[in-house]
């Protein structure tokens, strides 16, 4: 127990870095994922094909492979990063955006057909139909699954700890090496800080889910 209190500053640094990685990657993934979903339903065949291929490949790639590529293989090919955080953010946001794209697309499909038909019948073009009518409703219904994806993102950011980033998991590894006699408590501390993020988010998802369910 003492080992947690003694190393609280390190835990706090790791906690903040986990939040930072997840926050930045989450924002990038939300934007890129929505663009991918829009491309998936667009009238331009090349965009549809690109989006489909990207989502299919990335969803079936283990995250560790993505990290290994960004942090170990890319530098060998001459693409070096000043900080490994950049590699981690690239891997995390590229990976998460595929899942966000799928969720948003399922939201687009859940909007009643009449909405799009009404929008088209008053003369809106595709970009207007999508941005003014469909997406606002679609994003609303997919908020709970999106939060679940973001929870998964927070947990996935732990992989960065194995690739030279000192976030929560990386800090835990370091502390576990330094305090061989108190490994149990070191890791309990790490677990506590993860739960501090994921449990409230999960609770929030449930609340939103209930609200949306009533509104629909």
């Amino acid at each position, binding site marked *: 127990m003492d080992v947690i209190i003694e190393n609280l500053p390190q835990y706090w640094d790791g906690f903040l870095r986990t939040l930072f990685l997840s926050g930045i990657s989450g924002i990038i993934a939300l934007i890129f994922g929505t663009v991918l979903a829009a491309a998936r*339903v667009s*009238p*331009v*065949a*090349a*965009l549809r094909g*690109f989006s489909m291929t990207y989502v*299919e*490949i990335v*969803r*079936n*790639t*283990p*995250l*560790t*492979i993505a990290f*290994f*590529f960004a942090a*170990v*293989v890319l530098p*060998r*090919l*001459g693409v070096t990063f000043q900080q490994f955080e950049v590699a981690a953010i690239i891997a995390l946001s590229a990976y*998460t955006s595929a*899942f966000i794209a*799928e*969720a948003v697309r399922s939201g687009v499909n859940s909007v009643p*057909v009449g909405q*799009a038909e009404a929008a*088209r019948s008053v003369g809106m*073009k595709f970009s207007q*139909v999508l941005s003014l009518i*469909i997406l606002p409703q679609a994003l609303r219904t997919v908020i*709970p*699954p999106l939060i*679940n*994806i973001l*929870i*998964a993102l927070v*947990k*996935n950011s*732990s*992989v960065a*700890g*194995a690739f030279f980033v000192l976030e929560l*998991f990386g800090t*835990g*590894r370091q502390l*576990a090496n330094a305090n061989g006699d108190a*490994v149990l408590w070191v*890791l309990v501390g790490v*677990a506590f800080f*993860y*739960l501090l993020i*994921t*449990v409230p988010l*999960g609770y929030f*998802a*449930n609340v939103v*889910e209930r609200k949306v369910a009533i509104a629909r």
Partner: protein
Amino acid sequence: MSSVLYDVPGPKARRVSLIGSAIGIIAIAGLLVWAITILAQQGIFDAKRWEVFQIPDVWVLIGNGIVATLSAAAVAAVIAFPLGLLLCLMRISAVGWIRIPTRIMLEFLRGMPVVLMMFFVLLVFATGSFVAVVAGLVLYNSAIFAEIIRAGIQSLPKGQREAGLAVGLTSFQSRRNIELPQAIRRMLPSLVAQLVVLLKDTSLGYIVSYEELLRKVQIMADFLGPQYLFPVFFVAAVIYIAIDFSVSRLAIWLERRGSKKAAGGVVHVPVAGIPVAK
């Protein structure tokens, strides 16, 4: 090709979309050419870089890596599913002192990164890396399986359980003979999708030094020399993605078949609290 989102394209729109597609394809092709030129400058395409694959031992190592990956996934799946079933029954039990601790435990397991659990088992119980990988996967995935099956049971009409109890079955008999068979059938696509996640997560074994495919890549690159990292990594990544891809195709096939066979169809919507993504 028609969609409710846009009008059937006329000649002008078709032309615009064709030009757009052409520009898009040219842009992507340009990007690819650029990437390939950079790779070529690094000498990636030199035949001697790829000659490593003529060494039989390289293939033996890759084969061992695949076997290690698949066996960890298989053992974990075989243990996690019955355990998930048990946890699900405990989670919906009428007895408070079983239900509430189970609920807390499931919340705890679901909020935790899998790699942390693997690491925990590895260090605290001082097990081998295989046990650590399997234990981490089992702990996490049995919690997810429990939630998926619970969602399946809750999606059944109330009358199913009531009818079971009305003809004199005990609570457990009703769960086992009436509700679970339907629930599992309904949730089959989600269960198989979770299996894909489990399979993908075996790659986390890399972090706890379990010698699965990715770790073998690292070992080969260390042994043969860094110039072979890219070829070996490339082949391993393709193999990994191909395995995961075929299992997710299986999930899609089950979903199509299931929607014809399962009473009331399969449940598509991701249920609250169950991560659709890992």
